[in-house]
């Protein structure tokens, strides 16, 4: 506890590559949750002890495939009800995971635990520059309240320049049904 400021956590973690389970990297981090105002994202500082796997080849393959599509990519329900993600949609799913990580960070408190539950809809937005742009409607699962929260996010990506969430907004829950 830091008087007048908030609560700081010191963490030691192991990062595991979801696609290559035996590739792990140690990490230390400090997370500071601010007192009072719940609208400020927690401060995060971290140090990686090692290197992340190089993904240039896969990144470029995905980038070129999307760039060369005649019609903008559109998809729904990733994964589907049975947990399936087609091979073509795998990178789209992974991109949503990374981008939702940003949204989750911006909206986390000591009493929330968010996970990406599903991509309800994703639409590619054609751009004239080198970036890829996707407009996602995702469902976030919040563990403590058990709520499923629809969230819109606009994601920019480029193999060399990484991921950016340029816009995001929480959506109203569907009609009570």
């Amino acid at each position, binding site marked *: 506890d830091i008087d007048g400021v908030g609560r700081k956590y010191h963490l030691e973690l192991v990062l595991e590559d*979801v696609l290559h389970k*035996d590739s*792990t990297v140690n990490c230390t981090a400090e997370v500071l949750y601010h007192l009072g105002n719940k609208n400020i994202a927690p401060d995060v500082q971290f140090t990686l002890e090692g290197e992340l796997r190089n993904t240039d080849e896969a990144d470029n393959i995905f980038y070129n495939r999307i760039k060369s599509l005649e019609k903008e990519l559109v998809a729904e329900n990733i*994964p*589907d*009800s*049975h*947990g*399936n993600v087609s091979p073509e949609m795998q990178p789209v799913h992974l991109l949503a995971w990374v981008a939702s990580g940003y949204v989750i960070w911006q909206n986390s408190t000591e009493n929330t635990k968010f*996970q*990406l*539950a*599903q991509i309800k809809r994703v639409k590619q937005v054609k751009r004239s520059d080198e970036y890829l742009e996707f407009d996602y409607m995702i*469902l976030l*699962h919040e*563990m*403590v*309240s*058990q*709520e*499923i929260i629809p969230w819109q996010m606009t994601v920019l990506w480029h193999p060399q320049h990484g991921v950016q969430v340029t816009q995001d907004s929480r959506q109203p*829950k*569907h009609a*009570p*049904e």
Partner: protein
Amino acid sequence: TSSMKLIVIFSALFGVSLCLETFVGHQVLRIKTRNEEEVKKLQLLESLEHLELDFWINPSTSALPADVRIPANSIQAVKAFLESYGIEYSILIEDLQVVLDKEKQDMAYSQQRERGSNIFNYGTYHSLDSIYAELDHLASEYGNLVSKLQIGESYEKRPLYALKFSTGGSNRPAIWIDAGIHSREWVTQASALWIAKKIASDYGKDPSVTSLLNKMDIFLLAVLNPDGYVFTHTTNRMWRKTRSKHQGSLCVGVDPNRNWDAGFGGPGASNNPCSESYHGPRANSEVEVKSVVNFIKNHGNIQAFLTLHSYSQLLMYPYGYKCTGPADYAELDALGRAAASSIWSLYGTTFTVGSICTTIYQASGGSIDWSYDYGIKYSFAFELRDTGRYGFLLPANQIIPTAEETWLGLKKIMEHVRDNPY
């Protein structure tokens, strides 16, 4: 002549194709490394090509065991190596060829059977109707052991069916298992079905299951919340609650795991009907919950209450409604850890053990709190795979592995219950 040449070539090819690899005398060892040093020794072993070792699980981290197939000629050398470094191992398969021959036999047999009946695919998600049909099929195929009972009706009037596994007696001490209380947790209903099949087919073959069923009964409710389950198929895959309607609100449904009479209405449940954790107008307001409570009370001799949820990979005991420990904390914690260890032994899936309150969150009105305070000492809640990568949308190809590992955990608990009557 050219036709003679052809005959020679064909018979040579034929001969080669008959030269099948055999695994007579091959052993499969499971090597439990305790630290990085030992992992490195294994990796060294792996590099010795003349041993012709075939690693089924490669040594990469001391957190997971390494499984390796060893040709008959190399067995002595490998064991000597391991023993000289004090590296622990166990024999998973004594003679691989024996296992393969049996598998071939089994496959031939089941192919024969398959021609007769429609084989149910346990490795995929099914509709409620399909699950209910399979319950009937199990009760008929294993008629001497399995019977189907209706313990009540859902809000939308669907039957609540439980399977009873019994070898006789009158009101024997029994174990209760339920799944699907939260409808979106599809791997639980699917696993429950696989587990039902497993119990039925293992009786008379597996000594532990056999001795258990010779003394106790098992009740398995595979779909506690059928209305919700149907809704996840027809309308909203993420539906959690029941489908009950309440005066004064447009919102539907109550969280059935906040509706039990244990700290009802306390922290960790919502009084907002539109919330996913709405506790309902009063305890046992949900007919699904009331039906189970009535069954348990009327039976009078339930010794364990085990419930399946997903996801998060947790094995929990009471309490959820308060953060103080149950009186039997030590025994439940030890048993929980033993069960988690059994689960881990199969595929390395780690489950975290603890009370609900300290492990996930404070939550009032939960089922195992009620069962424990009612007097059922062995009350546990499982949260199955995964830890968030797919969450509720667990790929179907993980159903059977999940069911298999969960079964080992359940079995561990049931064996303890069998051996510790109270």
